[in-house]
């Protein structure tokens, strides 16, 4: 059963930029990430789901209730969705307790106290109820924002870049804690981010958007290893771009010749995107290599800790980047032979 369904959404906001989504579903208890560069319409999509924005056309369903359509529009205040912003948007004039209790309308004092106490315990902030937001650290503020959004027991949690306000060290920790908490409570989440790494870490499913349209939707693994187009491939990880030629059975590139999948019927010139880790290097030991092997000269390399990035110059003068384990870092000027890993090479028309 899907908690959130957006169907045939058409929306033009005042920047003369439109969002068109044919179908987007978030299943119960799943975490779906809207991913894309800034200005791709992901925040607008989130706002449409929240009821902060009324779509020009299309329908929004939450838990089998129609929230927006040609004849109906339920505003944010009546949708029972939770919302966490990038900057948390805590109410500075209210204590942590009052922030969390803000959405608990129509409950008695003791009931509120119970709910707030329970959720504070869940997010590990027991004892901070009487503090004010400015007294809390960034990570704690994030947890208060999460607690506030979840306290009224919303049908759906929407998060708009919820971790980008945190510094890098804190971000990973808070992200993992939040993920564990959301999974534990079985919360249905739609999360907006521009960071592909964050999306892959958090999401059960990624919806990659560009210019107001969905480019590809699928599990993180699907998007990473079966991108539908160049944009998707390049957005989710670094790529080298080279020209390639498809024959009936092979894909020929400057870095090597690969077998073509049988189901691929295309022939002719294509753009080939090769992930750095797909370029495997072997050092020359002096002996001759089999016919058709390719080689490149190392012109520089950087050690990034667990792995290293190697800049290679091909005989044609083109430069590509390869990635290898740090222990394999070569010397500058070394000539290596190249072997391509077919799984991380993508050919697009």
């Amino acid at each position, binding site marked *: 059963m899907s908690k959130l369904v957006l169907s045939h959404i058409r929306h033009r906001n005042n920047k003369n930029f439109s969002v068109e989504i044919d179908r987007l579903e978030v299943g119960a208890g799943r975490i779906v990430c809207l991913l894309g560069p800034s200005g791709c319409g992901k925040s607008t999509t989130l706002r449409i789901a929240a009821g902060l924005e009324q779509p020009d056309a299309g329908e929004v369903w939450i838990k089998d209730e129609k929230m927006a359509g040609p004849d109906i529009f339920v505003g944010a205040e009546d*949708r029972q969705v939770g919302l966490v912003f990038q900057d948390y948007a805590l109410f500075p004039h209210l204590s942590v307790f009052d922030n969390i209790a803000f959405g608990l309308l129509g409950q008695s004092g003791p009931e509120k106290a119970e709910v707030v106490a329970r959720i504070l315990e869940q997010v590990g902030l027991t004892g901070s109820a009487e503090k004010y937001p400015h007294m809390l650290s960034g990570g704690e503020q994030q947890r208060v924002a999460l607690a506030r959004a979840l306290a009224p027991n919303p049908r759906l949690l929407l998060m708009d870049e919820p971790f980008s306000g945190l510094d890098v060290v804190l971000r990973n920790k808070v992200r993992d804690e939040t993920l564990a908490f959301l999974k534990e409570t079985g919360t249905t989440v739609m999360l907006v981010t521009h960071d592909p790494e964050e999306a892959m870490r958090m999401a059960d499913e990624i919806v990659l958007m560009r210019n107001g349209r969905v480019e590809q939707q699928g599990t993180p693994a699907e998007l990473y290893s079966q991108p539908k187009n160049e944009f998707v491939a390049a957005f989710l990880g670094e790529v080298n771009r080279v020209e390639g030629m498809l024959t009936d059975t092979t894909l020929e590139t400057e870095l090597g010749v690969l077998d073509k999948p049988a189901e691929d019927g295309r022939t002719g010139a294509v753009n080939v995107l090769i992930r750095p880790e797909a370029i495997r290097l072997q050092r020359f030991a002096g002996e001759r290599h089999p016919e058709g092997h390719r080689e490149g000269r190392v012109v520089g390399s950087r050690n990034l800790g667990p792995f290293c990035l190697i800049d290679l110059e091909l005989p044609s003068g083109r430069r590509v980047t390869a990635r290898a384990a740090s222990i394999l870092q070569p010397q500058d000027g070394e000539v290596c032979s190249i072997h391509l890993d077919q799984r991380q090479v993508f050919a697009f028309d």
Partner: protein
Amino acid sequence: MLVALLVAVPILVVFGFVFVPAGDIWSHLASTVLPVYLLNTLILFAGVSVLVVFIGVGTAWLVTMCEFPGRRLFSWAMFLPLAMPAYIIAYTYTGMFDFAGPVQTFLRDLFDWTRQDYWFPPVRSVGGAVLMLGLVLYPYVYLVSRAAFLEQSICVLEVGRTLGRGPWGIFFHIALPLARPAIVTGLALALMETLSDFGTVQYFAVDTFTTGIFRIWLGMGEPAAAAQLAAMLMGFVFLLVIVERLNRGARKYHHTTGRYQGIRRFPLSGLRAGGAFLACLLPVFLGFLLPSGWLLHESLRHPEAVLNLEFPALAFSSISVAMVASLLTLVIAMGLVYGMRGGVSGRKNPVRTAAVRVSAMGYAIPGPVLAVGVMIPFGFLDNSVDAFMRSTFGISTGLLLSGTLVALIFAYMVRFLAVALNTVEASVGKITPNMDRAARTMGVTGLKAVIRVHIPIISGSMMTALLLVFVDVMKELPATLIMRPFGFETLAVRAYELASDERLSEAAGPSLAIVAAGIIPVIILSRAIARSRPGQDGGAEG
């Protein structure tokens, strides 16, 4: 530093007098007029507070957060009543709504009433004064609460919506509490102006502390008691600010977010849009359009009263005094700002800073009180010089400075220094020490740096400061009234005198000129605000 102290003298004198025993005048006052002063002043304060907060905050919210026809126009038109000095609106309304005015005459003619047949709310009453002051002072509250609403992160309001609150809930539970410090600031400004107001209450014959100060000082010759009364008055305003501070406790109101999004306004339609339109139109109409229209009408009806020989002379004296005062004020403000900065590029000096702060307090001191503060040291100086000259040279110099334009212009400077100071200071603050350092590495230092780097950056603000002071001086009434040299008249004084003599239509010309001058800063102000607020009219994508 010296200059700051010089400017601070009148302020210190006023506070100094608080500790001078004023004899039995107090027991006399307490048994006679004090209760009346107190009551009237409190009614005035309470009434003006309610009115300015209600109008100011309400219209600011409508204009900022709702979409209705005319919203853009109103967002700056709401400032217009600021151009209308309270004493002018007071006698304008008297002219229109008093017994002999057109409205009552029309009603009498229409229904054949005589004086006994009907009741009409009296204009010249405490209630009338509240209304007049409220109508021209609400822009202070409007100004700051609009700024506060614009600054509020829209995210906070949107979170409120997803937590189940509608527009009213958001207003009362989030926006209003968040804007509270700003609203109190605006209210304090409005109340200070209420305190300073002399013309309106005097004209309406409402006895307040302010008119009391006049009477006690000029009528009873008791400057100490007058200063003490003045200090008590100021105490009210400070009390308000302190109570608000205490009430905040550990709360903070600065925004927890630095993210601005275009404001998604609530679209209003039909009746609601009409209501919003009227709610914004009414204060502008009553506070500006109606009175200025009446002034225009009266001036045109009696062109001879406007175009006689007197008018150009009055305008000339008003403008020349205002020019001299504003130029001097600007020069002093610049000197103080750079003094605080410790030369062109130096360290801040806390003593200097404190001295400047004290000297800028003149703005918070009502005109009549300030007049007391200026006249006393000037009189002392004059008498000393006179005594010295007489004993050494046998010549009596008489009063050199008191009762001259020098004293008056000095009083203007003290009163309006803060206006120029704040404007210039904000702008000089934008010149970072690194800019000075960069200039220095290129060999540009000292005065050269000021001319080549600073002046081009702050020239706009200098102009603004000059204009603001200029217009404030043009409008100033009570201090001018007390301190002007014998026979010296300005537009404001003349308008007030004519109105006091019930020659209302003749007063229209000078008044109109003052109002016209007053529109200038209103335009500057609204433009500056429109420029400086983030996320005002932008899109919504974040």
